[in-house]
């Protein structure tokens, strides 16, 4: 029965392969800002705009989010938690990182380097038949449910490379989750903005890792010079945590 179902998926995929996918796929989910260390879940909307070979994924907090300054938390999260632009034609992926001054920086990453293990497990998401696949990527385990009938190997965030669009994805600890909720035909976004960044030449993930390390080293150095806790029995420490594993 399962084999027949998979065969059906593949056949359907083959028949609809000639169509170019265009549209906006809306997701709903969450992100744990303390990823694994404690519970700090916030609800998020995900939006994946697909225009043929190009796509843009953004993930924004539900409701209004303003970078705020609280007593013990300096909240400098950008408007979109993850902004990822993918160009399948040139095999490129670009992602945004906002620095301490909330200036956006763009870095390149490999398009779909993850090795998926596909299974025969299946379920319906929004009336669309989906199959399950798992992978490990940048230090975390991920599960994806993809729709072989939507013949584009894209998905939320940096995930993709499966024979169908990922409609649901989450990490092993359920710190991050995106679930498909609806779709519209709109597919307009300013691809030229990202294309110009790529044309100018942007640095890759090692450069991003270096950038983050440099930023943290600056913070750490200023902490070592912090005289408020010298000579008393106080000890201040700074620890860094990154969603993606940085060597």
């Amino acid at each position, binding site marked *: 029965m399962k084999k027949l179902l998979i065969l059906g998926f593949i056949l359907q995929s083959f028949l609809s392969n000639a169509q170019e996918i265009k549209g906006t796929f809306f997701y709903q989910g969450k992100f744990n800002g303390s990823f694994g260390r404690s519970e700090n879940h916030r609800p998020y909307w995900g939006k994946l705009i697909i225009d043929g070979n190009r796509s843009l994924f953004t993930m924004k907090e539900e409701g209004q989010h303003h970078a705020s300054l609280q007593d013990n938390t300096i909240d*400098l999260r950008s408007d979109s938690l993850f902004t990822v632009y993918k160009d399948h034609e040139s095999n490129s992926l670009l992602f945004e990182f906002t620095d301490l001054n909330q200036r956006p920086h763009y870095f390149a990453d490999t398009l779909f380097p993850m090795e998926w293990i596909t299974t025969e497990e299946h379920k319906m998401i929004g009336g669309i038949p989906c199959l399950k696949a798992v992978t490990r990527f940048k230090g975390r385990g991920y599960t994806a449910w993809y729709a072989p009938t939507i013949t584009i190997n894209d998905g939320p965030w940096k995930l993709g490379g499966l024979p169908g669009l990922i409609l649901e994805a989450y990490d092993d600890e359920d710190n991050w989750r995106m679930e498909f909720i609806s779709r519209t035909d709109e597919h307009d976004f300013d691809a030229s903005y990202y294309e110009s960044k790529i044309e100018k030449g942007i640095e890759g993930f090692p450069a991003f890792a270096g950038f983050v390390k440099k930023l943290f080293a600056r913070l750490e150095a200023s902490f070592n010079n*912090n005289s408020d806790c010298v000579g008393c029995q106080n000890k201040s420490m700074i620890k*860094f945590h990154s969603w993606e594993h940085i060597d």
Partner: protein
Amino acid sequence: MKKVSVVTMMLMMTFSMTYAAGLAKPEFNNMKKQISYVKQATVHTEAKTDADCSVTLKGKLDLGPIEAEVSCTTTAATCNEATIQAVSCLRAAMNTVRAIIY
């Protein structure tokens, strides 16, 4: 070996004849007093040391997928004092972070 076994048996018999058979009861009240005394002595000894209460307070710099966690651990003679010092330490630490940003 045999001697040890005989002595053990004799002790067990004596115990069962007195306590287990209900002829005499162990002095639990005295034992309670002893425990209470030990507790008080421990607290007293700890209070004599310079630092016996440790408080850790945490703050964070949230950049979304990247986070810097700032922590301040303070030890003081009393927990109240340690908390006051930890608050002050964390405030200074967070101000250091703010100074870098702005």
